[in-house]
Structures are given as structure tokens and as C-alpha cells.
């Protein structure tokens, strides 16, 4: 059961990574990147590292996405 | 076995290039990616399984931390006792990296002010 969950999470991770590289709209790319960070946090939790999961959920999902949104708001949205 | 595989790949490349008309660059790229995937899966298959007690990473060092950590540092969170007591100098280096990074960012973003 846990194996199925882990495989699904890894598949979502790959889909998010490919989507970030392929999508043209930068704001959508940031949101996909944030989803990537959230899935990565769940994977850290599954690997037994809850403190790393907390750092990833706060930094990788929250702050990195917010900094990128700030950068987009000062430049153009389209690639 | 491997000679047959290489022969098959070469014949497949010639077939794709001259009969179907795929560019040689794409064929070589796909072959290179396949080689990388093969090497990576070989590496992953050789790795020890996750969480097994007789893994090579679980030697006498983590055993010592787990046994003597709470009594030596007073913290029941072993990770915290490692990163801020046993390896506190590492954490100081990490904080220094953070400090230098933010100093560089501020110096770059604010260099036009003065």
C-alpha cells in the first residue's frame, strides 16, 4: 500500500518537473514548481525525515514560489 | 549477448536513419539517454535497501549517538542534538553561508543606491 503511494508520488514528481520545463506561462510554471515542492515534502516524510519535510514545505513550496512570483511581478509574465 | 545487443542497436540506427529518415542527431541523443538510464538503474539496483538495520550507513557512530545522545546533551530529539551540539560547528558554517548569501544579494540589489 505504501509502495503504491510512493510510486504515485514519484510519478507526480516527474510530471511536475517535466511540466515546469515545458510550460510557457511563467506564473503557471511557478505554481507547478510549488506543487513539486509539496510532493517532495510528502516524499521526505515518507522517507522518515519530518524535519527536512518541514523545511521543504516552508522553503521549497512557500518562500521560493513567493520570491519567484515577486520576480515575475517586476518583469514580464510570458516567457 | 552484449555483441548481439550492440549489433541490433547499430542495425536499428541504420534502419531509422535511411529507411524512415530520422536525423542522426536524434538517434544518437536517444541512445545516449538510454545508456544513462541503464547506468542509473544499475546503480539503484546495487544500492542497499531502505531502512535495513545492517546497512553500511548504520555503523557504530549513529549507535553511539542514539545511545548516549539524551544523557550527554539533554535533548530527546537526536537530530537536534547532533546538528547543534555534536556538529555545532557545521551549523555555524551553514549560518555563515546564509549570511554571506544574503549579503551578496543585498549588495547586488542595492548597489545603485550610493
Amino acid at each position, binding site marked *: 500500500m505504501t509502495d503504491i503511494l510512493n510510486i504515485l508520488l514519484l510519478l507526480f514528481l516527474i510530471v511536475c518537473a517535466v511540466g515546469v520545463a515545458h510550460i510557457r506561462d511563467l506564473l503557471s510554471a511557478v505554481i507547478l514548481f510549488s506543487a513539486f515542492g509539496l510532493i517532495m515534502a510528502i516524499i521526505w516524510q515518507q522517507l522518515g525525515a519530518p524535519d527536512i519535510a*518541514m523545511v521543504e514545505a516552508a522553503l521549497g513550496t512557500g518562500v521560493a514560489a513567493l*520570491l519567484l512570483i515577486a520576480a515575475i511581478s517586476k518583469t514580464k509574465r510570458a516567457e | 549477448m552484449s555483441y548481439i545487443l550492440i549489433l541490433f542497436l547499430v542495425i536499428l540506427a541504420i534502419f531509422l536513419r535511411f529507411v524512415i529518415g530520422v536525423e542522426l542527431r536524434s538517434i544518437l541523443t536517444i541512445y545516449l539517454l538510454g545508456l544513462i538510464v541503464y547506468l542509473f538503474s544499475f546503480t539503484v539496483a546495487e544500492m542497499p535497501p531502505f531502512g535495513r538495520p545492517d546497512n553500511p550507513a548504520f555503523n557504530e557512530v549513529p549507535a553511539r549517538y542514539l545511545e548516549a545522545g539524551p544523557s550527554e546533551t539533554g535533548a530527546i530529539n537526536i*537530530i537536534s542534538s547532533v546538528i*547543534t*551540539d555534536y556538529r555545532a560547528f557545521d551549523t555555524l558554517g551553514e549560518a555563515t553561508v546564509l549570511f554571506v548569501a544574503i549579503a551578496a*544579494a543585498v549588495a547586488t540589489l542595492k548597489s545603485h*543606491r550610493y
Partner: protein
Amino acid sequence: MLEDQIVRITSRLVAPFIQVYGIYVILHGHLSPGGGFSGGAIFGASLVLIALSFNLEAGVKQISHQTASVLESGGALGFTVTGLIAIALGGNYLANRAAGFPLGEAGQFFSSGAIMVITVFVGIKVASTITTLFYNIIEKETPHGNSKQAD
């Protein structure tokens, strides 16, 4: 920045809870998963959330530029001074039990001596670093080339 009512009300409702959780993670770093980096990142994320969903002035009202810079340097300085106090007490640099910090009883809130102090300093440093970085990126520039003084 984002002129959106839903985002504003949601972030105003959620931000205090995020801050309380960040302080909890910092203060319980020696008892539960987490520590200075995790709690500081959570606390800094709440401040950044307020500054992003309202505007820079609302974020600066929470913690000003000057305060953030002082806290950031002070966190690193406090970490270093804690190690020097250990030398003054007769141990190695950043020693805990060997320097004679009161360890207390393992599992209690006030325990583990220097670990709690270092965790609090690291948390302050990480939170103010994130805030400073965000403020510096988001600040508007006036045509004279000077950044707008926000406070």
C-alpha cells in the same frame, strides 16, 4: 501587490496561526522534529505572505527593514557568542555539557542547555534572512535610481 480580496482575507486569517506554529517549532526544537531552520523558515514565510498579499507597507509594519537587518546580524552574532561563552566557561568552542551549561532533565521544556539557545538564534536568523531577501527584491525603485525608503 495582489489586489485580491480572497487572498487578503485568507492570508490575514492564516498568518497568526503560521507565526504561532513557527515559534512553537523553534522553541520545541530539542523535543520534537524541527528546529531553528524549519521554524525560522515557517515564521519568515508568514511575514513574506503578509507583505505579498497586501503591500510592502503592511509587511514593513510587522517588521521593518532596520529591525530585520539587526535581527539577522544579531542571530549570527548570538550563535558565535554562545560558542565563546562555552570557551569562557572552560570547554571547547560550542561545547554544551563540557562547558557546564545546565542540561536539565531530558524531555522537559527547559533542558539541553546551549542547544535551545542556539536553536532560537538560528531561528531568528533564518526568519529575518528570508524577510530581508523578500523586501530587497520587492522594493520599488524611483527614477532617480534610489530605492524607496519604506520606513
